[in-house]
């Protein structure tokens, strides 16, 4: 499997607080990697570094073999790292289609040149297409405003937007935390389809049952360090819990 993202010895210090201490990890295309750990273990800090929200104190990062430094989320996106944060970054009062293309609107062309007039019809059609590719069938009308969608539908839109430009790396921050059972299933199914399409998926989760149902690998963090890197099929939930709380049998 192809390595698409590589982090080496990444640290992040806030004054005397060492939020991240020498994190090294790799993500592979067509693989779902779960990132678990207790509150304050450094998961969010790690995700923020990878997605360009914050800059690491030391360490290096490679995307598809090339060294990168992300000064902002936009740079990360351009490099192919798309992150779906917990707050989803959707605008409630805009429609599904408008949110799908927020900041990257499709425009009309005139005499072979782009003019600053929205091509609303095309955005709607592309939205339906993008949702269809991911098997999201509960959203039929792209003119529906986000505020009248359910939590699962919102999550679906956010994920669909992240992979709109077929991103090689997708990071999901607690995608099912606020969802009910059936909606969580939808999102997990979505992740599996991303995996099949060759995307490298990193998912932050607290729910070990879900982690075991979708992930190929589990990375455990504790106190700012990566303490374990398991192949999911080789371990039990108990092993992971022990690694999270810091007892014996730390992974390789």
């Amino acid at each position, binding site marked *: 499997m192809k390595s698409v993202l590589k982090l080496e010895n990444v640290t992040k210090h806030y004054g005397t607080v060492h939020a991240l201490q020498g994190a090294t990890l790799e993500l592979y295309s067509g693989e779902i990697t779960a990132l678990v750990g207790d509150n304050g273990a450094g998961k969010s800090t790690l995700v923020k570094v990878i997605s360009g929200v914050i800059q690491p104190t030391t360490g290096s990062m490679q995307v598809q073999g090339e060294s990168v430094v992300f000064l902002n*989320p*936009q740079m990360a*996106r351009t490099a192919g790292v798309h992150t779906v*944060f917990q*707050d*989803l*970054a*959707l*605008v*409630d*009062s*805009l429609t599904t289609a*408008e949110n799908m293309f*927020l*900041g*990257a*609107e499709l*425009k*009309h*062309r*005139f005499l072979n040149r782009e*003019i*600053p*007039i*929205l*091509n*609303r*019809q*095309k955005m709607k*059609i592309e939205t339906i297409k993008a949702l269809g590719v991911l098997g999201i069938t509960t959203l*039929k009308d792209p003119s529906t405003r986000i*505020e*009248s*969608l*359910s*939590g*699962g*539908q919102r999550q679906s839109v956010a994920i669909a937007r992240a992979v709109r430009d077929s991103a090689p790396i997708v990071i999901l921050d607690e995608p099912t935390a*606020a*969802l*009910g059972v059936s*909606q969580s299933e939808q999102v997990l199914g979505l992740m599996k389809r991303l995996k099949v399409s060759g995307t490298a998926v990193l998912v932050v989760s607290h729910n070990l049952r879900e982690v075991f149902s979708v992930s190929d690998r589990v990375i455990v963090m504790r106190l700012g360090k990566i303490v374990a890197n398991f192949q999911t099929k080789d371990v039990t939930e108990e092993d992971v819990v022990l690694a999270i709380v810091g007892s014996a049998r730390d992974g390789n």
Partner: protein
Amino acid sequence: MGTKIDKRKIDSSDSEEISSARKVLTKEGFPLFFAMILTILIFRIATESFLDPRNIANLLGQIAPLVLIAVASTLVIVMGEIDLSLGSIAGFSGALAAFFIGSTNLHWVFGIIVTVLLTLAIALLQGAIVVFGRVRSFAVTLAGFLVWHGVQVGVLGNASQRPLNRSPLADLSITRVSSGWVLLGSLIYFALYLCFFILVKSNNSREPEGNESSRKILTVTRTLLPLVALCLFSKYLDQVGGIPLTLFLVLVITLCSWFLLTRMPIGRHMYSIGGNPAAARANGISVTKVRLTGFILTGLLASLAGISIISYTGGADSSTGAGSLLLQGIGATVIGGVSLIGGRGSVWGAFGGAVLLSAVQNGLALLSLPFYVIDIVEGLVVLTALLADALIRRKYTFS
């Protein structure tokens, strides 16, 4: 958070079969439409002359400043900001234009151009302080409210007023457009629209099979209907000379603002900044640039509002523009369903709100009620609009 999501879960099951009642009631503009009908009915019964062509032309000939301020307010409010200096900027602009046109040899068109340019500089300055200085727009424009009113009084000089001295600008507000011209204008607009439709739109988007032609007919009809309504309306006013030119002009300006807000990327970015600034930023929208543009456009509209006032009153004095115009403008915006929190609302709502407020004023004046009653009723209308909106939303939406 938990309870909110739970509620959504329950509602999501039937979200695809939204009842038609809910669709109508939650549509932006419904409360406004209802209030408009009610107002017309009440004043039609209470007064003889409310629906007279003469009264309607008179009423609509005065609404330009209020409409412009309401549309300007909409532009800042959808971005989640507020501009309390709009009335003062209008007043300053009016005083400046009156000075250039009435007291210098400058041609009136140049006078207007110089005035607008100077006002744009002011708007840019205020916007820059908000955006780069990271000060709340409420505070900056509150200061602007005082500063620009001071400058306005300064420009007026010792006489504290400046007449336009029979400039053609003063004729603008009494000019009427007969139905023939309205028809011609409508035809030109429709021709331009068809050109755009054929040359740009149909080349750019492949329709899904089947509903192509029915959708096209629907789109064209939606453009045609308001034009037909406008032509019929001007026909009705022909006996008093036609519709006021200033109404025609503010219709065009509102149309342009609507196009900018709903059909151009920058407009959608303005809404997204008002609705969820973090999301806008996360999606790579240059929040700084969009907000600055918004403030500049707002200044432009406020400037035109000031000029439309002096055109109507024949000159500027210290009461031109100022606080009451600002508050009515924001009131009209709110009546029109523009949310003060930002992110939602339309300029046509603001336009309707301005017409409604003016109609109420006009109707009460026809009843020869004292001024203080008019103020009280106006305030109550704004309050009622807000309450109706809040009640309907609470009942029919879940967010």
